[in-house]
């Protein structure tokens, strides 16, 4: 074949070490395959023409969800469907699991992963605002060893990540779950299923015994080039029992933080406005989940 397309290589290493070695040596267009639900779509459209595909699903360790020191570790090859069937994870982080389970159909759920969702670096990725709100970290393996990056720092621009040559995401780490905490993720899509978020909000919060919010993280999706962590929005509800006034301030802070574009999925005006609506609704849900009344 004169095209080079016939020379595409596929490898499925069985250890992280092998994967890193292959990636470090690779030349040309190299792509890590986890769930494949983004990569194969881009290949079909001709936007990506890989010379090398590195399938990390044969690395056994990456299929595990484990509980470590109060937190959770989710391997990069764990499908969103299997996250949904993990009861402990769902109990601790219902918002993250719901967000993961919103990605695509049951068919997609059987394949897609939150690590892949994050690596795709789309501002509209469903699981990312929930992960950012949770304070999750990505554990990256590379030729120089391992490093951890907060999820909000992982994507640098639409389609761009902080991954360096030879690196790949091995797992996602969720922090220790404190008592009286809750999280929630909501998105707006035109249909009931099968859509990309037009705008979305993820909120994680912790209450004291009286139901006052002591800590909160608010993240918005699809309103800026990358998922936003909105500190002023968190500030608006910390120290409150999520009264109407706090909710209004939360909504306003969210709308203020938005820097969206008009595109086929929504307008600037719509996104700014509905970001506030979703943030308020997600906050109420998270508050209830944290045991607030």
């Amino acid at each position, binding site marked *: 074949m004169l095209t080079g*397309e*016939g*020379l*595409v*290589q*596929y490898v*499925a290493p069985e250890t992280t070490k092998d994967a890193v070695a292959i990636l470090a040596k690779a030349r040309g267009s190299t792509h890590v*395959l986890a769930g*494949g*639900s983004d990569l*194969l*779509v881009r*290949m*079909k*459209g001709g936007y990506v023409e*890989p010379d090398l*595909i590195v*399938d990390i*699903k044969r690395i056994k360790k990456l299929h595990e969800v484990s509980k470590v020191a109060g937190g959770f570790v989710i391997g990069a090859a764990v*499908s969103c*469907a299997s996250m949904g069937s993990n009861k402990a994870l769902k109990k601790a982080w219902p918002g993250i699991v719901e967000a993961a389970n919103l990605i*695509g*159909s*049951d*068919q*997609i759920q*059987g*394949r897609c992963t939150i690590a892949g969702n994050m690596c795709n670096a789309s501002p509209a990725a469903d699981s990312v605002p929930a992960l950012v709100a949770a304070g999750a970290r990505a554990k990256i393996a590379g030729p120089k060893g391992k490093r951890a990056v907060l999820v909000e720092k992982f994507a640098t621009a639409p389609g761009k990540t902080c991954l360096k040559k030879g690196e790949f995401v091995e797992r996602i780490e969720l922090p220790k779950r404190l008592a009286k905490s809750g999280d929630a993720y909501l998105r707006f899509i035109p249909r*009931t*299923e*099968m859509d990309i978020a037009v705008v979305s909000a993820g909120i994680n919060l912790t209450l004291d015994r009286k139901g006052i919010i002591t800590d909160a993280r608010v993240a918005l999706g699809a309103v800026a080039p990358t998922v936003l962590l909105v500190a002023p929005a968190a500030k608006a509800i910390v120290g409150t029992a999520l009264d109407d006034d706090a909710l209004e301030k939360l909504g306003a802070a969210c709308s203020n933080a938005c820097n969206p574009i008009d595109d086929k999925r929504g307008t600037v005006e719509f996104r700014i406005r509905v970001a506030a609506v979703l943030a308020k609704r997600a906050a109420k849900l998270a508050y209830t989940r944290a045991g607030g009344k």
Partner: protein
Amino acid sequence: MAQLVSTKINNDPIQFVCEPQEPLLDALRDRVGLTGVKEGCGTGDCGACSIILDGTLVCSCLVLGVEAEGRAIETVEGMADGATLHPLQTKFLEHAALQCGICTPGFLIAAKALLKNNPAPTEEEIRYALAGNLCRCTGYDKIVRAVQDAAKVMRKG
């Protein structure tokens, strides 16, 4: 470089050769000859190419053929037991849950996966479980009814 892939398809040992970038959908249709697996979009949005891969419902257009090495695949061609149709197939016929029929293999496979995990789904659960399968002819009404009826029959064993 083309690779040899060994799989179990509908309980038969099947080997095929495919290019690394080739979707499993193309391999099943063009290399194995299982054209009951349909392509409506090639991007995971229509579900016509649904198969069950090692027990998990997936779109075969979003799986590489080479990934199927050592794995078990179920397609619509393997649903009936000889001349005896699967209850879902029977109920799709009885309820006229198909018109043009291009989406039917995908719906049958997705419904089979659903009923395996949830033998008594509500109407809403059926609708959400089948949301990854597009049908443009029926308005879904008769499909949902067929799945409800099949579930009833299957529960009775």
